[in-house]
């Protein structure tokens, strides 16, 4: 049977979401009329998109996330960066992930669509621009990957048909040339190093470590800002990222901070 995240329909996406949390607001996620133009089945399926569905109550972020500890963090033993500033999901309805072409994704995930000042590192708790005023959260992932789905679910936000933004700061003790960002994401994503687009993952993707490797890039001595955005329709959104040296070995003598 098809699984969410694959190219079959997931009937939950395409609904109108409403937070169960009384303090929250209704989020309009999908205009299924638009989708219907792409996939004729939508118009007649039960996913017509005119139904409101109550979001389940927040489940909390444990055990997959912890608040960041004081001081800079380190890559894990495999080099994965676990400390990130993560933004509440932003609605971007997609009933299927098969439409995540490079053109579409680069349009949806770009400095122009970034909900704030693209060159600036946000602060924990800061509200970003946007209809629903999404908020930045400084978190340590307790897994090698960052389970964005859990971030959304845990905070009572919509989980499907969304865009997640992530930012972290890598401090390098020296200039490191010919390194590569090695990224996996579910589903598509785009990544920038110090403001330059460095890698893109397109299509209906499962998260696999080292799925896409960037071209060789240089880590500056000192601060390096890594920024990324993940878009997903149905499925469990997540990503993992590490930095590899020219020989393909993970770099661990760097620190990670989100301040």
């Amino acid at each position: 049977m098809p699984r969410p995240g694959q190219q079959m329909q997931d009937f939950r996406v395409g609904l109108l979401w409403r937070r169960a949390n009384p303090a929250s607001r209704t989020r309009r996620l999908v205009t299924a009329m638009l989708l219907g133009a792409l996939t004729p089945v939508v118009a007649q399926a039960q996913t017509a998109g005119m139904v409101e569905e109550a979001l389940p109550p927040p489940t909390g972020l444990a055990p997959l996330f912890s608040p960041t500890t004081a001081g800079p963090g380190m890559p894990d033993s495999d080099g994965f960066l676990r400390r990130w500033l993560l933004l509440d999901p932003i609605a971007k309805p997609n009933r299927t992930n098969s439409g995540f072409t490079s053109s579409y994704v680069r349009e949806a995930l770009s400095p122009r669509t970034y909900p704030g000042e693209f060159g600036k590192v946000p602060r924990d708790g800061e509200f970003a621009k946007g209809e629903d005023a999404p908020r930045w959260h400084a978190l340590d992932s307790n897994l090698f990957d960052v389970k964005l789905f859990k971030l959304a679910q845990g905070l009572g936000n919509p989980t499907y048909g969304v865009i997640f933004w992530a930012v972290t700061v890598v401090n390098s003790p020296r200039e490191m040339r010919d390194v590569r960002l090695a990224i996996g994401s579910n589903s598509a994503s785009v990544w920038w190093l110090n403001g330059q687009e460095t890698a893109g993952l397109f299509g209906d993707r499962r998260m696999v470590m080292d799925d896409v490797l960037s071209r060789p890039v240089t880590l500056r001595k000192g601060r390096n800002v890594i920024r990324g955005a993940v878009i997903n329709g149905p499925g469990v959104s997540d990503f993992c990222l590490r930095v590899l040296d020219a020989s393909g070995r993970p770099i661990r003598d760097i620190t990670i901070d989100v301040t």
Partner: protein
Amino acid sequence: MKSAAAFSVLGLLLTLAGPAPAQLAGEPFIHDPSTIVQSDGKWWTFGTRGGGLVSNDGWVWHSGGERPGGGVAPDVIKIGERYYVTYAVGGGGMNGGHASNVKVMWTRSLDPKSRDFGYHDVGIVASTNGIEIADAIDPAFLYAEGRLWLSYGTYFGAIRLVELDPRTGGRLAGNQPVDVAIDMEATALLHRDGWYYLLGTHGTCCDGPNSSYNIRVGRSRNITGPFVDNMGVPLLKGGGKLVVAGRGRQYGPGHFGLIDLGDGVEKYSMHYEADLDRSGRSVLGIQPLLWTDGWPVGGDDVAPGTYEIQSERSGGALQLAVDFVRIPFDPRRSFRAKPSDPAVPIPNQSLAENQVTWPAGVSEVDLGDYMIRAHQQWTISPVPDGGGAFGTPFYKIVIAGTERALAVGPEGTVQAVPAFTTSPEQLWRIDQLTDGTYRIMPKASAGAKEPLTLVALGRSTPALAKFDPKSDAGRWTFKRP
């Protein structure tokens, strides 16, 4: 059956001119080629009578080399600073009956232009007297674990083994011949993973396209045998597992010689009794060697055609990194159809339909799930007069139905350029590895000290990097679309 060596002169005399497009380029005419070895930056092989062939790249071969002493079916091995050369004089069932001597000599260079060139005679290391049922021709060396062995013999009775002194090339004092097989020709010995392999040729020699020559093998844990084939039939009772037979336009392979190029690339030399694209003459052949369940198996260069190029690392298909184009499809056709509804064929997406998202210029290349789409299907073909390397021609790799060619890109990337131009960045050497997969290397990198090959650097990221034989990252297979 007739002796390979004795009749080889006939093949050499058939020197009709004509095109030679079938396999190796140049004038690769030879019979009973010795194991190919490198000396002074060139590759050398010697045949029956005194001459040989020389090549700079393993693809274009010309007459060259000098081997004094005449006789038949030499073999060459390098130990330390010396190239030992063995050959047989007499025997073969023709003029001299089966009385024959195997001789050895050595030189520090095989290149007559080198000041190190110059043969030193070691002398006779094995003989048959013409009465016993054995014939001391077709000698072959094996140097393994510090010991030097020599097999010899032909269709006339026993294949024998003697031990030589690797310091001198002479026969070890007191060593007695051991019978290890019967009724083979042109034997060769290999040592791998604790096994000794005895290869030899079965069938009819020296009759052009009517030759049934084919190469067989048996193995043993001991160099002195017993060698048995895959069915347990001893080679002393006529056994032998097939390694390679004739194919296509080349008939009657025989006289195996291992070429270990390192990094999991092994090839073997042989002669074909008849190359029908070259007047049916006997020519040198070089093919990939595979190892399957502990047995050597003749491999194949990639056949011209259209393929998915699949990464062994990820299973991903090499593809233009272009936007995906959906095939119009209503899922209700599948999920809501009644069993009685007519089933009608739907065409695959056409090249024209797929092409709508392609950029006009250079395209990035990446790896993706194979979706039977035009941007994932590559036509691979040898480039006429494009040269080659060690038995394989250089290929062009283009998206089927187009001239969009796989090419070396900047910063170790690969890309597809709009038109094929024969530049070295667009020519690819494709070597089959011992496990049957393939290594893909740009010609532009072929001369480098550490040549770069196409690898799946990430699951979905192809790049050019040094080949690691322990990894699947640089291994590829070609699947029919």
